């Protein structure tokens, strides 16, 4: 089966700077993959190479089996891309721009789909306006409509929710879920780790052009973060010595340990019975902490 995206040993340099340095990964059909990393990590360079805005220094990128350099047209038909910034077209309305975009893919006669996108992304009342007349959130929605006008099977989202309000962000997440359910594979770059946790089946952590870590968000959290357990006891215990104990005062004890260990294991190591526990608060680690951990290790 041809994979939606297959990248092998991809390198891209600008002089001495290696923006992408020997990156390899694949995306499975219907999978949502998050590309995480700080500014300048190489996320946008990677996207630019997939959509042929930049030519790779070496390595290959295949979209549904089509090499993007050798068989660009076939690869482009399967790919939709939402760039970071909206382009200000001074001459045309957003509806006209969608029709032109559809025309480049030979689907300008699909009025129903263009109308569906305008409606689904709440742009119908704005369709006769020019892009500069729209708010930041509307521009972002327009970029998504534009990327989906030819019904691509692989969608690349470069910081799709940067600078938009919470309500719009949530509605865009819902839309991405709908796309995933319809079989579209998604590669998204984001700074919002909450977004990656909510949307992604898998995340790739990239820094200085290299993939530092890959895995499911929950797996990474479990592996690289600490879980905090706050235990309130019915009767206070005498002073304890335990490797995970970070605080003990009166009835309250705070433990911090790897998320890969279970709470049952912890309790079994303590000199108390289950009925001696009055309350238990568990604070799981965040992907943000895992990311920090990876990036600090990579320095």
């Amino acid at each position: 089966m041809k994979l939606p995206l297959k990248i092998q040993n991809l390198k891209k340099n600008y002089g001495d700077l290696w923006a992408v340095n020997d990156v390899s990964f694949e995306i499975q059909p219907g999978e949502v993959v998050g590309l995480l990393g700080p500014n300048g990590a190489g996320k946008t360079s990677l996207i630019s190479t997939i959509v042929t805005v930049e030519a790779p220094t070496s390595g290959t990128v295949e979209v549904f089996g089509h090499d993007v350099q050798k068989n660009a047209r076939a690869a482009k038909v399967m790919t939709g891309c939402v760039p970071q910034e909206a382009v200000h077209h001074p001459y045309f309305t957003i509806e006209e721009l969608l029709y032109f975009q559809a025309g480049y893919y030979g689907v300008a006669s699909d009025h129903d789909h263009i109308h569906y996108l305008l409606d689904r992304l709440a742009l119908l009342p704005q369709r006769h306006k020019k892009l500069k007349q729209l708010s930041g959130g509307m521009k972002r929605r327009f970029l998504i409509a534009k990327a989906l006008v030819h019904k691509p099977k692989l969608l690349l989202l470069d910081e799709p929710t940067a600078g938009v309000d919470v309500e719009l962000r949530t509605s865009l997440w819902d839309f991405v879920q709908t796309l995933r359910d319809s079989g579209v594979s998604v590669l998204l770059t984001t700074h919002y780790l909450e977004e990656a946790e909510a949307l992604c089946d898998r995340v790739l952590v990239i820094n200085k052009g290299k993939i530092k870590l890959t895995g499911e968000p929950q797996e990474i959290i479990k592996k690289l973060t600490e879980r905090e357990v706050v235990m309130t006891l019915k009767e206070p215990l005498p002073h304890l010595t335990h490797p995970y104990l970070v605080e003990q005062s009166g009835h309250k004890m705070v433990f911090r340990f790897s998320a890969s260990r279970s709470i049952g294991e912890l309790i079994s190591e303590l000199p108390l019975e289950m009925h001696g526990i009055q309350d238990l608060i568990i604070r799981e680690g965040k992907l943000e902490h895992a990311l920090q951990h990876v990036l600090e290790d990579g320095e």
Partner: protein
Amino acid sequence: MSTLAWSPFWTLFKREIHRTLRVIYETIAAPLVSSLLYFLIFGVSLGKQIQNVDGVTYFAFLIPGLVTMGALKSAFDNSSGLIVVAKFCNELEDYRIVPISAIQMSWASGLASTVRAFIVGGITFFVGFLFYYYTEGVWLIPEHPFLFLFFLFMGSLAFAHLGLGLSMIATNYEQVSAINTFILLPLIYLGGIFFSLDQLPPFWRNVSELNPFLYIVSGVRYGLLGIGDGPLMLSFVITFVAWALSYLFSIYSLKTGSYRQWG
């Protein structure tokens, strides 16, 4: 797949025609005013004091030159404008993302720019046509209409491709402006619009003979008046070679030029 093969070309062609219509003032009013002024100053006013050139009045001699200048300059500006605006707005990356080839871009932009060139050339001709009747008392009927349109078409297409290619390899707007001022304008103004080669001293005559624009003007002039600088076949060959080189240059620039936004 066959629909897709032609669709990007037609889409960009239609888009460019729409763009021309959106700036209808620039397209029609500006050449109308400038051709009126040229004809008033050089034709009606100064032209009366200049003797006949190659057997025709100076005013008649001037018309094909001004038509060619207006058309070719407009073709250059239009295709160059597509890239310049796109590089300012960061729209050029979009053309890399969609499935349009360099050949399709070059032809779509070239032909749409030629349509605009014909609008501008047509307006200039119409103004000259009316002035000619006013000053000479007879209508100016093209001697060889097919040749007149052929040379105007090939010249416009060549300048459209040239504008596209030069704007693609330019790394900032100042370079485009410098090309316009130091290369394009001297080529046009020293290309036999206002004078015949026979009127020049030998040195400048030799220099002018290296200017391809001269042969395009000469071809258009032959089509309109039945006279030209040098053999018609030479105009054919040089106009065709100028177009072919411009076209190849535009393809090269589209394939190797930067699609990044100007900083």
